[in-house]
């Protein structure tokens, strides 16, 4: 069986500065795969390239059997790749409901959309309570819930989450991670980028450690969690 997402020798540059220097990895359907690493490792650049917001300088991305080279961002969503961006990027002056509706922008099945909005409210009850409120007035954690809920609205085959726990309180972080675990148990395929390596690796089937644009170490989540160098570098142990 071929993987849902295959990335081969991907290189991405901002002008002359290469941010991603030839990385390869794959995501099988039903898996949670995580990219961990410090700031500037190239994780966000990788996700932004996968969703078409950045153009790679070279390398191959094959999603669901189709090469993504030259496909514009707005058409990549249609293929089933959803991206919840770093910093959440909800539409601040639209309501929660309107944000969720935009997540389903390409869908035509009105009833299905309504059902999925209800499902998002079930997953995140606080969003349901505030559905008419402008999204910009939500707290950081609530905005993160909205960003995830919005990404799910396209019924993606692969959900990419970029730093979902960034800037959140420990309690909110736990909630978000629990939600990711719940999505995983429902069979959602997830590519998770996190600085919180402990939480990400505990959830992940596969993990890749990135350092300055390259993958330096790969393994199952559990292997990496117990790897000595990972524990030293990312889990704060001496």
């Amino acid at each position, binding site marked *: 069986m071929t993987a849902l997402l295959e990335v081969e020798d991907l290189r991405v540059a901002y002008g002359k500065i290469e941010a991603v220097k030839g990385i390869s990895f794959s995501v099988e359907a039903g898996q949670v795969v995580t990219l961990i690493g410090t700031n500037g490792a190239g994780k966000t650049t990788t996700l932004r390239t996968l969703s078409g*917001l950045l153009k790679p300088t070279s390398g191959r991305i094959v999603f669901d059997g189709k090469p993504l080279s030259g496909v514009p961002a*707005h058409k990549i969503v249609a293929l089933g790749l959803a991206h919840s*961006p770093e910093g959440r990027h909800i539409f601040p002056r639209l309501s929660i409901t309107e944000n969720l509706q*935009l997540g389903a*922008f390409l869908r035509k099945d009105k009833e299905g959309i309504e059902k999925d909005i209800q499902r998002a409210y079930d997953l995140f009850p606080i969003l349901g309570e505030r559905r008419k409120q*402008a999204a*910009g007035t939500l707290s950081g954690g609530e905005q993160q819930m909205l960003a995830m809920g919005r990404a799910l609205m396209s019924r993606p085959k692969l959900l990419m989450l970029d730093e979902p726990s960034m800037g959140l309180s420990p309690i909110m972080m736990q909630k978000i991670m629990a939600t990711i675990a719940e999505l995983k148990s429902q069979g959602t395929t997830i590519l998770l980028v996190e600085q919180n390596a402990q939480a990400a690796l505990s959830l992940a089937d596969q993990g890749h450690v990135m350092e300055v644009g390259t993958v330096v170490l790969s393994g199952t989540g559990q292997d990496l969690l117990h790897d000595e160098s990972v524990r030293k570098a990312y889990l704060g142990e001496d």
Partner: protein
Amino acid sequence: MNTLPQQLANGLFLGSMYGLIAIGYTMVYGIVQLINFAHGEIFMTGGFGALTVYLALPDGISMWIALPAMLIGGALVAVLIAVGAERFAYRPLRGAPRLAPLITAIGLSLALQQAVFNWYHVDGDAKSARVFPQLPFGPLHLGSVTVQSGDVFLIIAAPLCMAALAFFVRLSRTGRAMQATAQDPDTAQLMGIDTNRIIVIAFAIGGFFAAVAGVSYGLKYGSVSYDMGFLAGLKAFTAAVLGGIGNIYGAMLGGLVLGVAEAMATAYIADVPGMHQLGGGSWAPVWAFVLLILVLLFRPQGLLGERVADRA
């Protein structure tokens, strides 16, 4: 004639024309953060497009038949030029330093002026204005207010256009996509929105509104000229800033406020002791730009500037 209600009405008529043009500035700015300084010329080409259609029609044709054809012709010209400017002048410069599209806009503005000037140039005719046909009825008298025939068109067209735009932006799928693109273009693409298409639509709507304003101008003043877009464009830009650039309701409100302020200042400022030489229409642009300076000093976000803060 110089009663207060009359001046107020004059200001509102003028202001709704500014507002129609201001929509083009504010929509384009709201979506691509570009001040399209050629927009005044798009307004002008709208007027000339309508005039060209009129001249092509048989002599003595009723204005009731000619006007719809003129509107369509003017709108077609203005929308094509606006969309063409986006495609060939501004799109290649997206991501370039801000100054580049600004200079391009000024260049485009001069090019359009000169093109129309040459197109309509008549040997030995030093004047640049071209006579514009008038609606076939006289002024209406509503109480103490007299409404010229040209303003009747404005009274009907401006609110109609605004209402249609408000419904379109709030209720249609494309309108929702426009709001999303204005607030966060990258994320809009992640939703599956073709932001290039949205930008083209913003330019097209701006061009259409400018054409309606261009026809209004011709009907109101009885003539159009190749340089009519310069001052009207600057004032409409002022109106857009006054209302809160990026906000379509702000553009219309800014236009009305500017029009009324101009009419009032023109009519009454000479009565203020010591300011008797500042009265009259030739001072009108001065009051418009004084108002702009005041807004920029005391309320730079404009009257309806964005209210909801973005939280990081």
